[in-house]
């Protein structure tokens, strides 16, 4: 279970990452965040964003058009 869940379903770019960043800023290293998104550009943007910020994308999956990302703050 993630420490925080950020539901951005229905929101378009850039809002999913803007919301995710705000949430991530509240976490301590080692804690995890789950982000839900229906934005199709999510996967590549999330992967790149997590890498650029030096965190870890633990898992990502897509189910019924909803992307689910698990990010670990490092």
């Amino acid at each position: 279970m993630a420490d925080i869940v950020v539901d951005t379903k229905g929101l378009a770019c850039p809002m999913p990452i803007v919301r995710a960043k705000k949430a991530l800023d509240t976490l301590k290293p080692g804690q995890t965040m789950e982000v839900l998104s229906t934005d199709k550009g999510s996967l590549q943007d999330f992967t790149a964003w997590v890498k650029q910020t030096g965190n870890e994308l633990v898992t990502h999956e897509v189910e019924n058009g909803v992307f689910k990302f698990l990010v670990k703050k490092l």
Partner: protein
Amino acid sequence: MSNLQHQQAKVKKMTAHELTELLFAQEELFILDVRNSEDYENWHIEGHRVKSFNVPYFELIDGVEEIVGKLPGKQKILVVCAKEGSSVFVAEQLAEAGLDNVYYLQGGMKEWSEHLEPVKVGDLRDGGEIYQFVRIGKGCLSYMIVSGQEAAVVDSVRLTDVYEAFAKERSLTITHTIDTHLHADHISGGRKLAKSTGATYWLPEKDAEEVTFAYEKLEEGKVIQVGTTSISILPIYSPGHTIGSTSLLVDDTYFLTGDILFVASIGRPDLAGKAEDWVGDLHDTLYNRYQDLSKELLVLPAHFGSHAELGPDGVVSARLGDLYRDNPGLNIASEAEFRRVVTGQLPPQPNAYQEIRQVNMGRLQPDEEEQREMETGPNRCAVHDK
């Protein structure tokens, strides 16, 4: 006026049409592309006097201070993203930081990839005209041949409402839609356009072995008439990109070469997995069949690979004789060398090209959104495209 309204007022919208006009006019433009770097490297907007710079929007969430110094102060700055949202987000921050000539691209790369700009190529002897429809974001070129109150559309893309609106404005009836070959880089609009206008749809038989629909066979020597005063479209069999590829000679002047011969390159023979089989056909077409034609013909290809091929007013064309002098693909000394060059240096294949072929055969019926996804990115139909 609140602070927020004030910022929004300073950011200006640029449409795909306005951007196209600016690129055709070779105006100076600075583009800040805020998509992720992978998407940017795969495909971005280019122009004669365009400077482009990539910083993903998610690096700018906390502010744009770090990049403001790298941007020109007075020149037009166009912020571009995939769909629009992130470009508005970044553009507003730039405006807030004091830049006052900031635009965002309406609809982002999604609309850019679907924009079609009609440009007139020239006149026909009976008073008719030929137009090129430049799909500038993807490098696809299609054509409308107009004579009397009739029109034929060649290598139509799937955005068929553009041709229909163009015809309607001029009170034209589209009577023929023609595909020079089975396309692998974009979804053909030929069948859809024929269906909605009552036109006849033409396709080379050798490219149509697996199709699920009825069509008229595009065959060498079988003349297609447009209008009352017999503007003829003469098909010439010219295999190589596909086994059925057929070129069209319009009014003895305009030579529509499909994906066989481009202005700066030549077609690639591998998109149906048969490079070794078709490279010989491609060589024969370019070095024998086309050689027998008048060097005065104006070559009008179905693609361009780079903005450098856009001529004045945006038309992509070249005299056949000039291409025999300047096009590297027409200046390879021997067939053995040709085989080596053409099959040895092929660029990556276009996005979803196998699925696109299936759609064009009528064997897959994706919805609008899926079609759009399949067509993402550049066309890559030429041998020398990067």
